[in-house]
């Protein structure tokens, strides 16, 4: 039986995400009959906002490799790219952390069942 187990890191993360918002603006327009009229124009814009999401990453490999990967996550402030990032080799993660993670922040987790 091969001796490979994993460590799952899970919790609530905080990161910036682009969000489309719509705001109203009053604009003056000259009609064909030369009458100036004010109307409301809806404008769509992209804003980056902080969002909170539950994420999980499972690192497979030896205890030593996983410890190194965990230290990397702590040092660089990395969070998983997607909701569930499973079946990640710890060795591969140490070499290419950008494949599986992005910059973000782990925040205090509320009392919740383990994912």
């Amino acid at each position, binding site marked *: 039986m091969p001796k490979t187990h994993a460590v*799952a890191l899970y919790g609530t993360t905080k990161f910036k995400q682009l969000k489309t918002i719509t705001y109203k603006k009053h604009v003056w327009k000259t009609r064909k009959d030369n009458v100036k009229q004010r109307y409301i124009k809806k404008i769509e814009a992209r804003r980056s906002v902080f969002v909170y999401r539950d994420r999980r990453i499972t690192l497979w490999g030896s205890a030593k490799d996983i410890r190194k990967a965990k230290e990397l996550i702590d040092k660089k402030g990395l969070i998983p790219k997607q909701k569930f990032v*499973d079946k990640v080799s710890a060795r591969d993660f140490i070499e290419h952390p950008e494949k599986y993670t992005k910059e973000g922040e782990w925040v205090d*987790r509320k009392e919740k069942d383990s994912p």
Partner: protein
Amino acid sequence: MIGKRKIPHKYVYGFTTTKGLLLDLDNTTLKESSAIAEKYMNRFHLKGYLILRSSENNYHVVFNHYLTWKKTLEYLFKIVWRYHYHEHGVKPSLTYWAILQACKGSETLRISTKNHKRMPRIVRKHGETDKLCKDYVEYMKELQ
């Protein structure tokens, strides 16, 4: 210089495996958890176990024998079937945990601190502890 202060991590981490049977027993006493561990160790020939206290009245059980994922699920849901309608009342927490693990495709038990809870610590050893139990302790010590 004042002693080195560890910065607390804000995520939780747990030991994950597909090669053995783990149990998360909530709202139980040590006596009850020992009885359950003893009973199923003998029934499924699992040779040994570790009982860890995760918080007050919550215990984790790690069985020593290596199993395939198919066998693990078979044994886990046999226990769930009996334990859901326990003699002290319905205890669905193990059922919820087992369903989550089956969805995930692996079993996870916490080995870190979580909110106000301390990291789990071993309260009872029984039989052989040279396979999965040894791996569990190794991962726990390495990631402290």
